[in-house]
């Protein structure tokens, strides 16, 4: 057996079903060996999207997504995808081919120091120098990627190592790492302190981030919030921790969030922050919010606790385990009566809605996204891109039993289509809709070919306004309409483009016929491209 075959055996042992990638000479031994396995290979059209697609798959399966690309430009192209996954703590395994190990460091054709280049965007990286290390390294890589605070792990494998004969292949049953031991269970004393504060609190709130979804703690969070009548808000990455219309859910916080959600945070006397980083877009002035309240910060990564705000009670551990332990504590729900507080928040929610004045000549993104949400399957997957479309999606998409995904931390344009493809591959029976703008669409429209080639039936919506809308909006406010490099003239006719890829197309020019258009768009499990014309001057705020 050679190294390349060993890699495939490792992936099989980890239950990997699909690998996204783009071959080149340096990864060819691997792509030769994978033909003999049942693992599906998806030829993506640019390497960045291999990482995004693996990210979409990982978010649906809860297991690391895998991509495999060649050395040099193949590896450097994937960096943005890796950084995107790192910022949102998505587990990935990125396999990169590398030049012959004896030539490393001599700047030969397609050599790039990829382990050095991705250092600040990976949880860990390996450069394999001995073929016999492959089983151990893969076992460790999958473990590191998907435990503790999840994230991407890169494995760089020179071509001669892929071709070298491995003495004896044995995939380790267990990981034995002397140095890496993530904390799972929260400290019981801290858990008791949280319950003590909860008993005292008059206006408690839970602010849930992406960590809740990553640990699969949605059910436990909901049970806890319902049991003790605690209102819940979320960060952008936390959207979907509770159904949008759940009576205890009060929207997304942050500078692009709901005013009533931010007000709830400001007025709370106990904030339970869970799986969230207290990052600038969610909590722009942490001192103001926590100044008069007790802050409990629950996170699997102890370095996030105290980084942006100093908590009263730090609690390190996995969200699901911590909620399970919180639910075991003896505190009677009737001792936590927050009826007045909840009524206040409901009043804020009813009276603090943003008033929009949509231009009737165009499609109103608010009305469109609400209508789309209502017509999507209960468990449908909604993947939002980056830009104005993302802010509208966050504001108006109604999650029921489905998933909402977007690139939150890095804000990488072009994420939605490849991520939706990964999600669809993971869950072929579920409806998957990517919603992007005309800028982000053009960053990943080459993947329409991948969808066709591999029959990945993703539905795509382009909210088209002929502008890089989010930047235009910034220039509108900051530079008084002095627009610079935001005009998207020259964009393709999407109807012709869809025809070129043999993908059905629908155009919606204004709100008339919206329901029928969405019905037609969603009616069967086929790929479709839908274009909605949006007022170029529309604003998210």
């Amino acid at each position, binding site marked *: 057996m050679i190294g390349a075959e060993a890699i495939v055996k490792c992936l099989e042992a980890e239950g990997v079903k699909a690998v996204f990638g783009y071959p080149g000479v340096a990864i060819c031994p691997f792509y030769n060996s994978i033909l003999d396995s049942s693992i599906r290979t998806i030829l993506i059209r640019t390497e960045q999207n291999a990482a995004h697609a693996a990210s979409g798959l990982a978010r649906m399966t809860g297991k690391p997504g895998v991509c495999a690309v060649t050395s040099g430009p193949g590896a450097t192209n994937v960096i943005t995808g890796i950084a995107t996954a790192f910022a949102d703590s998505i587990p990935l395994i990125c396999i990169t081919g590398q030049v012959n190990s004896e030539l490393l460091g001599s700047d030969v054709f397609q050599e790039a120091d990829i382990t050095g280049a991705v250092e600040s965007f990976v949880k860990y990286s390996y450069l394999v120098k001995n073929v016999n290390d492959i089983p151990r390294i893969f076992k460790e890589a999958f473990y590191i990627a998907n435990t503790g605070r999840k994230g991407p792990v890169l494995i760089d494998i020179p071509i001669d190592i892929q071709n070298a004969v491995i003495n004896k292949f044995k995939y380790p049953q267990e990981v034995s790492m002397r140095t890496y031991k993530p904390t799972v269970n929260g400290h019981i004393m801290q858990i008791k302190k949280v319950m003590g504060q909860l008993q005292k609190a008059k206006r408690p709130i839970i602010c849930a981030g992406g960590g809740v979804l990553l640990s699969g703690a949605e059910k436990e969070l909901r049970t806890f919030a319902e049991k003790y009548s605690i209102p819940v808000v979320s960060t952008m990455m936390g959207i979907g921790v509770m159904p949008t219309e759940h009576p205890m859910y009060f929207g997304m916080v942050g500078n692009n969030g709901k005013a009533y959600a931010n007000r709830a945070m400001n007025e709370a006397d106990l904030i339970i922050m869970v799986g969230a980083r207290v990052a600038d877009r969610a909590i722009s002035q942490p001192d103001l919010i926590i100044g008069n309240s007790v802050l409990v910060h629950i996170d699997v990564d102890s*370095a996030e606790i105290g980084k942006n705000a100093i908590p009263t009670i730090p609690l390190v551990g996995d969200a699901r385990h911590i909620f399970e332990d919180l639910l075991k504590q003896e505190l009677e729900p009737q001792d936590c009566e927050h009826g007045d507080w909840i009524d206040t928040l409901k009043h804020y929610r009813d009276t603090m809605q943003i008033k929009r004045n949509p231009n009737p000549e165009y499609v109103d993104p608010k009305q469109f996204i609400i209508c789309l949400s209502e017509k999507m399957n209960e468990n449908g997957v909604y993947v939002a891109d980056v830009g104005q479309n993302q802010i509208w999606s966050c504001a108006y998409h109604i999650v029921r039993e489905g998933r909402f995904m977007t690139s939150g931390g890095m804000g990488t344009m072009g994420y939605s289509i490849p991520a939706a493809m990964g999600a669809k591959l993971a869950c072929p029976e579920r409806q998957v809709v990517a919603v992007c703008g005309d800028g982000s669409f053009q960053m990943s429209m080459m993947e329409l070919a991948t969808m066709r080639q591999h029959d990945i039936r993703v539905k795509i919506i382009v909210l088209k306004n002929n502008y890089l809308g989010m930047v235009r909006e910034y220039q509108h406010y900051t530079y008084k309409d002095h627009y610079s490099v935001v005009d998207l003239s020259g964009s393709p006719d999407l109807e012709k483009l869809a025809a070129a890829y043999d993908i059905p197309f629908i155009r919606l020019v204004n709100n008339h016929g919206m329901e029928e258009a969405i019905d037609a768009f969603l009616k069967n499990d086929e790929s479709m491209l839908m274009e909605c014309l949006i007022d170029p001057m529309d604003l998210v705020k």
Partner: protein
Amino acid sequence: MQKKVFQLLVDNTAGVLSRISGLFSRRGYNIESITAGVTADPKYTRITIVAMGDDEILDQIEKQVAKLVDVRDVKELKPESSVYRELALIKVKVSAKERAGVINIADIFRAKIIDVGPESLIAELTGNQDKIEAFINLLSDYEILELARTGIAGLGRGINNVTYLAD
């Protein structure tokens, strides 16, 4: 701004030093010195880092370093319960006439003269940072041609808080 000394026990993997120093540069942490060397078990390297910052930054440094996959153990070496040592090599320009004066100062500090030439000598001094600073200050009457300092290595005193390699 205050100074803290951290002692790290890390897996002796390829690139471990660059991972640690990269963490400091990318997060903008101030590092005064970093020294590294293998331990009794060659699988491990012991690293001593002197870092500067306010309390919150120093707390972050400790947590971020602990988070690195290669790092097995990180702890602060508090001055009252630790020993720190640094080695300095100092090449001083001295004429035959001046030589005795420098050797005199070196004797007081228990520095060793490890090289003597017609116009220069090299003194070797081991000690904590204050002692080395004081020695260099005293030599300021002479011309220091070259100076090499290792940065400090440190260990905690006693048998409490020892991280045993076998565990």
